[in-house]
């Protein structure tokens, strides 16, 4: 009878081991592998024949293998747990040398005559890959939104570059005319030429600055958080976003803030949020032909910085209020409707929030971006 029961439970155990999706290993107190299931063969590349009887260091990268004897020893003598009963992410090594992440949980089996340890292992690569893919995808989306924001501004930019270019060409024409005058009719030619050249250079700088700002904004892809004074972030963003607003008769103003407001953020992403909000405000006013002002302000409330963009436009259309921050919500003919969705995810990634409300007085909308202050660097901002 006894024999029968043992056989039954052995068979059960064997079939359990073989069908388990996770790798299962049993080792004795010296680390010698006693049991090594089929999932382990797939996971590590060694057959059960090769593995059973070998030390478990076989499937560890050398850095772990060296420390493993020490861990075992200290657990057995002091009971100090590094992994037993806890479970954690560790590195494993395939027969072909590949090192890869696994989740490992270890149980301590105290048999009457000996100690054995049971390890259950799961390959973490698929999970990490999909996480990585998700992160990459989000990075790409954020970048795409940035490029498309600039794309929408293409015509405006051409217009804005046209002004300094026009001035440069006219200054050069004037220079030529001064220089071509017969010497006897010239007065003070040197000074006049110098003044015109100086003005020409200033206009070339103006054109260059527009291009530089644009390039900075579009090209930077990687996230790079730093302590920055939001006042700089805002003024850079508003410079770009308000291009062309004046020509539409829209007044874009930034309220002066006397003290630095420092947050630990990716300045380009926060710029992106602000540019979106300001462009949206300009679009709203321009399309409805109602309103004329966009006000941008920044203040501190408790441990938060609050940046607000408020306009006196027509307000948000009731039909889209509910899904304002959902992707592909747009009322614009050529709108993508991803600006606010991305802006909100950027805010949340920074531990902040983005919300919209009606303006207190009159028509119009206020968008509020709240970000946690960088309290450690509250008074010592670095460059934005």
């Amino acid at each position, binding site marked *: 009878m006894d024999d029968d029961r043992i056989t039954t439970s052995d068979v059960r155990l064997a079939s359990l081991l073989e069908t388990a999706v996770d790798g299962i290993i049993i080792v004795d107190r010296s680390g010698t592998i006693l049991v090594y299931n089929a999932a382990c063969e797939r996971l590590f590349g060694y057959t059960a024949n090769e593995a059973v009887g070998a030390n478990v260091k076989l499937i560890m990268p050398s850095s772990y293998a060296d420390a493993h004897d020490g861990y075992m020893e200290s657990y057995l003598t002091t009971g100090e747990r590094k992994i037993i009963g806890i479970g954690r992410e560790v590195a494993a090594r395939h027969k072909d040398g590949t090192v890869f992440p696994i989740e490992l949980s270890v149980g301590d089996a105290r048999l009457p005559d000996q100690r054995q340890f049971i390890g259950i292992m799961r390959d973490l690569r698929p999970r990490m890959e999909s996480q990585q893919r998700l992160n990459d995808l989000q990075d790409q989306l954020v970048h795409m939104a940035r490029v498309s924001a600039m794309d929408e501004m293409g015509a405006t930019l051409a*217009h804005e570059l046209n*002004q300094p270019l*026009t*001035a440069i060409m*006219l200054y050069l*024409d*004037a220079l030529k*005319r001064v220089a071509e005058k017969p010497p006897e009719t010239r007065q003070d030619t040197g000074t006049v030429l110098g003044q015109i050249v100086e*003005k020409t250079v200033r206009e070339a700088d103006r054109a260059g600055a527009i291009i530089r700002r644009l390039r900075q904004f579009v090209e930077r892809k990687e996230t790079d958080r730093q302590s920055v004074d939001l006042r700089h972030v805002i003024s850079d963003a508003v410079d770009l976003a308000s291009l062309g607003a*004046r020509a539409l008769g829209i007044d874009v103003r930034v309220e002066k803030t006397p003290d630095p407001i420092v947050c630990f953020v990716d300045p380009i992403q926060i710029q992106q949020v602000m540019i979106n909000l300001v462009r949206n405000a300009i679009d709203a006013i321009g399309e409805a032909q109602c309103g004329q002002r966009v006000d941008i302000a920044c203040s501190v409330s408790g441990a938060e910085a609050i940046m607000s963009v408020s306009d006196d436009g027509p307000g948000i259309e009731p039909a889209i209020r509910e899904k304002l921050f959902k992707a592909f919500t747009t009322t614009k003919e050529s709108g993508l409707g991803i600006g606010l969705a991305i802006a909100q995810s950027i805010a949340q990634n920074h531990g902040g929030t983005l919300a919209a409300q009606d303006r207190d007085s009159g028509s119009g909308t206020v968008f509020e971006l709240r970000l946690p202050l960088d309290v450690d660097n509250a008074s010592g901002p670095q460059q934005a």
Partner: protein
Amino acid sequence: MTVHIVEDDRAVADSLALVLAQMGHAVEIYNDGRTFLQAELSSDDKIILDLHLPDMAAATILSHAKDRGTGVIVITALGKSQIDREIPGFDPDRILRKPIDPQMLARLL
């Protein structure tokens, strides 16, 4: 004859004035529409008008000029569809697209 430049971009207005002065013209600059409407005009004057002023529609300035019989040259960086919307029917030969060719400008004056 005086050339009146109505242009809100200060550098464009300044450079334009410089070229015109070198051509031998008397020049006045106005940075917005309101200031320009107060100016003295005579029928042999010329107006160089930027199409997109912050404070006034171009059409307002055009009708003001027409009342006084003063000729207008329009300068603009805007696209054709916007030009048609702002000043429908305006003689296309008297519109200069930015960047402006000074030779063309001289010919129109």
